[in-house]
């Protein structure tokens, strides 16, 4: 059975000419050859050659079923996927209640969106995740690197250093309690300098820079193959002002979402986005809903909404393919975003609580 010309990835003008000339299937195009093709539809020989190369690739792709240079086959049975998911790690957030409702932590190969009003703790969580993704595997982490794309300018290096210091401290305490070879070995490379040097920071000032950065990200990720987390802090900010054409905004956002899910899937990394809140007027009341409209809600696979209840911060899991909807309270402390923490794999009972509340001057070294 032959591929229809309408389903091949050619430019629309070329496709219109081919259909007007009477070509219906890919086989006919290949049989005609570049010279015949350029004569029939009146294009140059180079264009005809290019078009035929695309067609040949598509048909060869049908036969060979490769996944376009990504290295990972995208077709498998559910059983294989289940095995893959069970061996995949999570990026822990150091807040056990949050990890519980997420099903273990932030999942790799999925897009997680964090929505919330200003000041509720979204950037804090992003910085926490950028540090937590680097925790070595023997301590229960994924031992990856992080890409941080900042559009609002809210990334504070000294805050990240505080979080990194506390994380290193915590792992040191665990290693002291357990005294295992690989723990001590891992700790040699896990230090404040190494953590900060493995967070790749990009600053984008408007939506064009953001789109360009995201479309260039696959090349960057293929060079730095250890990256397991991509954070975009403030995806709403560049798209909310300066946009007259709303349908263009929807199209750009949808294209961006597809690009991000391709990145998450091909490079096995988690993508975390933060979003703002806006007011929507219902029939007789107004409610706070995430910004960027209804169609953006479909972009993220997992959606967390942070909100206030008087003075208590609450986190609600609003959308998830595998977890139930639930709400938990949380706090932001000096060194961590957490109320209580526990590393999922190691249960060190009797371990003293990490000195989150004391500020040790010796810890600050950078």
């Amino acid at each position, binding site marked *: 059975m032959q*591929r229809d010309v309408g*389903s091949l990835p050619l430019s629309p003008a070329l496709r219109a000419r081919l259909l007007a000339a009477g070509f219906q299937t890919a086989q006919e195009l290949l049989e005609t050859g570049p010279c015949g093709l350029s004569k029939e539809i009146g294009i140059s020989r180079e264009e005809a050659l290019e078009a035929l190369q695309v067609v040949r690739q598509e048909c060869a792709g049908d036969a060979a079923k490769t996944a376009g240079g990504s290295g990972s086959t995208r077709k498998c*049975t*559910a059983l294989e996927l289940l095995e893959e998911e069970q061996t995949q790690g999570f990026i822990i957030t150091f807040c056990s209640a949050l990890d519980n409702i997420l099903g273990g932590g932030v999942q790799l190969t999925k897009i997680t969106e964090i929505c919330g009003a200003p000041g509720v703790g979204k950037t804090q969580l992003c910085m926490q995740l950028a540090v937590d993704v680097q925790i070595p595997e023997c301590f229960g982490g994924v031992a990856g690197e992080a890409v941080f794309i900042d559009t609002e300018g809210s990334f504070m290096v000294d805050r990240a250093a505080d979080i990194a210091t506390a994380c290193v401290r915590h792992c040191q305490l665990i290693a002291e309690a357990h005294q295992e070879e690989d723990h001590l070995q891992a700790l040699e490379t896990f230090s404040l300098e190494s953590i900060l040097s493995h967070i790749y920071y990009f600053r984008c000032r408007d939506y064009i820079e953001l789109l360009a950065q995201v479309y260039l990200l696959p090349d960057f990720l293929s060079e730095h193959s250890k990256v397991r987390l991509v954070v975009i802090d403030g995806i709403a900010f560049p798209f909310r002002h300066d946009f007259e054409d709303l*349908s263009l905004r929807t199209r750009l956002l949808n294209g961006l979402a*597809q690009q991000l899910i391709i990145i998450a899937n091909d490079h096995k990394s988690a993508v975390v986005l933060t979003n703002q809140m806006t007011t929507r007027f219902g029939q007789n009341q107004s409610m706070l809903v995430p910004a960027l409209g*209804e169609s953006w809600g479909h972009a993220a696979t997992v959606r967390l909404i942070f909100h206030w209840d008087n003075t208590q911060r609450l986190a609600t899991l609003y959308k998830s393919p595998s977890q139930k909807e639930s709400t*938990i309270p949380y706090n932001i402390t000096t060194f961590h975003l957490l109320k209580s923490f526990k590393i999922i794999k190691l249960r060190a009972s009797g371990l003293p609580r990490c000195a989150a509340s004391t500020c040790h001057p010796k810890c600050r070294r950078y």
Partner: protein
Amino acid sequence: MAAGVVWVALKGHPLGVTRHHCSVGGPMGMLRAVCPHGPPWYPRVRYGTPWVPIPSPHRSLRFHPRSAPSHSAGAMVVLRAGLCPGLTEEMIQLLRANNIRTVVDFVSSDLEDVAQSCSLSYKALVAVRRVLLAQFSAFPTNGADLYEELKSSTAILPTGNPSLDQLLDAGLYTGEVTELAGAPGSGKTQVCLSIAASVSLGLRQHVFFLDSTGGFTASRLYQMLQARVEDKEEQLEALQRVQVVRMFDIYEMLRALHEVRDCLSQQVESSAGPLKAVLIDSVSAVLSPLLGGRQSEGLAIMMQLARELKTLAKEFSVAVVVTNQVTRDSSTGALKSALGRSWSFVPSTRVLLQGRAVPWEEGAAPHTACLAKSPRQPTGMQVQLDIGSDAVQEQRPVTPTP
């Protein structure tokens, strides 16, 4: 104008049965003519049903003979030597010189003029035209035969959710495209997973899941299977019958659908065994980057996808389920499916899923499903869906933990 009605079943046409009043030309010139015997202007329907005479057509009447997609190509085929016995290379060159390049041009032109201007024999041209029409036109069948065929090939697949089955008139019908639309978090992926679990476990048929959002979680599917059956062997077997393809681009989706059709037509038993359901989650994720603005290319691709889906459903008797987003109607503020009016003609059944608006409020409404379009049931029917966490049947209310 003729007094009768001819049911012209367009064989292999994805839209199924249409009805034509036999006026000249029809609304858009869509007159299917068949000429196995006799003059070409009178359609003779098979199996003894009465044929209806049509007055001799106007010179401007164009034939659009169209064949089933599974045959070689379509009617806009370029005339080639060897396409039919009487067609030689020199004939083609002469015809081309007179601007007759495709089958449609040839069949719809006046043969006497062509014979004169190309200096070809009239008899030869008529013979060639007869063969081409027989080769490329659609053959009508009568309604009784069509009904028998549908009865024997259509199956109804249970969705695993009794209230949804009730809404869909006992379940998903094969040969049709069903659409589930809903806001984010309303349960579309969960319903798709439930359908996959029910078909692969209950009916032991293969299921094809095309995922374009990354929302397919195998562990959730496993949870659903565990809730339905205790035996671990059966659960693993059921998991193996679900094939998952991840594609995030419209061309990849078209390619994946084409592969499915290839597999089915060659009847390869190994990978896509007895396939009964194809689930696509979601169609709007790959189409919405192309629509909008002033580009009409997006609409063309969307209709190409629609044609692929309908052909797949009709020819191989599979049930195709797609999920879609929702937008707000600008005038009334009500929710409706995305992708516009052109897409609204593609699925034959449309279900609108609604979840809760604000999840952290107490006593929020459970998930509901509303029938927006159906060929069999009254629209506006609404049922409550139970999308529980472990068991699909029971409903657990969500309360925020203090």
